[in-house]
């Protein structure tokens, strides 16, 4: 309930305080395993306000702090720290915007950032650089073709390399936490390359 209240307040703020600054959606939670990275689950009322694509992240943060929902903010922060969290606030689903890409992918047993993911990295790195107050987490994953511990280590290297690449693109080390889920939270559970390809990834999660 409180989240809907926040969303409504923010939506009204949007219309009031639109700006041209680049946008990042304010996601509060980690995606549920089944959620595709590109289009997080959204709540109906919030989707309707997609007509105003530009969102001022700072304004959002301020609004949260200022809004009567301070308790909501605290709860949201706690929820963000836990893994069973609520659905995120909708980001603009704009494929042209590299920032909407929240995952980078890898070939089998490889932890180096691939070329086609460089634009995504650069965009997020720049974003973090421009907003030093932002924090994010890179979460590494691996497909099942290894032992669980090896895959945890592989996912960690992927997350670590993603962090390094983000730092090279403008972010600060302290803004990013790199962790791994190994093969423990697969997005797809088939024993086939389609599933495996989805699982070999790092998720970029703004905190």
């Amino acid at each position, binding site marked *: 309930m409180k989240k809907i209240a926040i969303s409504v307040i923010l939506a009204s703020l949007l219309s009031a305080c639109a700006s041209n600054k680049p946008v990042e959606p304010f996601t509060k939670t980690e995606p549920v395993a089944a959620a595709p990275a590109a289009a997080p689950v959204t709540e109906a009322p919030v989707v309707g306000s997609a007509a105003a694509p530009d969102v001022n992240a700072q304004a959002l943060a301020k609004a949260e702090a200022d809004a009567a929902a301070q308790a909501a903010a605290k709860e949201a922060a706690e929820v963000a720290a836990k893994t069973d969290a609520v659905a995120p606030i909708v980001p603009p689903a704009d494929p042209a915007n590299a920032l909407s890409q929240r995952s980078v992918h890898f070939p089998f047993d490889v932890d180096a950032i691939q070329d086609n993911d460089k634009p995504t990295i650069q965009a997020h790195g720049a974003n973090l650089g421009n907003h030093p107050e932002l924090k994010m987490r890179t979460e590494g994953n691996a497909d099942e073709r290894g032992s669980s*511990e*090896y895959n945890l*280590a592989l996912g960690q290297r992927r997350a670590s390399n993603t962090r390094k690449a983000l730092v090279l693109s403008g972010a600060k080390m302290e803004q990013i936490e790199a*962790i*791994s889920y190994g093969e423990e939270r697969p997005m797809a559970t088939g024993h086939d390359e389609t599933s495996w390809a989805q699982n070999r990834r790092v998720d970029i999660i703004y905190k």
Partner: protein
Amino acid sequence: MLRLYSLFVLLCLAFPARAVLDIEVTGAGEHQVPIAIIPFDGEDALNQHISEVVASDLIRTGLFKLVDPEGKAPHEAKEVKYAEWAKAEALAIGKLFRSADGRIEIQFRLLDTVKKTELIGQAVSAKSEQGRAIAHRIADAIYEKMTGSVGVFSTRIAYVNRQGRYNRLVIADSDGYGEQTLLALNQPIMSPAWSPDGNALAYVSFEQGRAFVYAQSLLTQQRVLLAAFPGSNSAPAWSPDGQQLAIVLTHEGSSQIYLVRKDGSDLRRISFSDTIDTEPTFSPDGRYLLFTSDRGGSAQIYRMPVNGGSAERLTFEGSNNFSPRFSPDGKSFVFAHFNGGIFYIAVQDFETKQIQILTPGGWEKKPSFAPNGKLVLFATEVHGRGILATVSSDGRVKQKMTPQQGDIREPTWGPFNRQ
């Protein structure tokens, strides 16, 4: 005449005759001891089907086959007519009594029907709810007498049961009964590791959002947070003296191996590569570690001295090799062998460097030896469900245990009970 004389001379010289005939017998007719297990007197009345548990324990090893008693039901040695038991080599009989304070006493005998002698005669007393435990001890005694190896029916195993996002860390008897849940989360749990005395379990829990290593006492259920460094903390392995653990941390870069005391103090780094080094495991004499590393370009198994030093690569076959564990006698190690996209469980001898693949192949991971070195426990998948499986150390006897619900992952066999 001369011929005759010479013959006789030879005959005389050749005495005395040692008239023994040499016969060589090679091979065997059977690999399963035929054993008849008579329901113990009184076990129906007391609702303690001890003989059934003994029978299923022995059958599960694949080394025994049950002989139908065909209606005969001796309970004491004097009631046994050996001539009636030609189809069996061994006969187990027994009696149950209940004492006034509710305890049960079991007298059982194992008779050799071929040599017509008594092999075991024992009396055991215990609380009435410990019927299964007593049955396991009887099965251990029979197994040991007939095969020469120590039995593992009284040992326990630990594993993770996962249903969707719900994970439970479970310990159970080696036959899957008597499950106890140590931890239940909506986050992943990994890598349970038994302490050498069987009184504690270390494991990896994601309850705080990422991989942390805990050690939990099975006696007090109290936990110690052993490692919560930035990044991932995982792969706990106890030293044979139970005083320290090897763990894998990533806070200084890639996954590397560290030693830490069981209270979490005195952290020392012992591997120094910039690649992945993980899955450390101690040798039974505590002097070496086996671990998985991709320092050579692909995940392979290496051995190094416990206090650090140069590592020696051990596996060279297949695409990758993971999850090494020493055999209890330290002469070989079991591991997961990945080749052609398929996982197998394999054993490699340290001295001969020969590998033997024990399983037909599939999603077979996380092998561990039983404490008598005769069985290997591992996780596999059948019809899309994660289950437990065991295979004998020579690859001949295979057995599967399917959970009633959920999928089983990360199994590990516990030590001998010291009770």
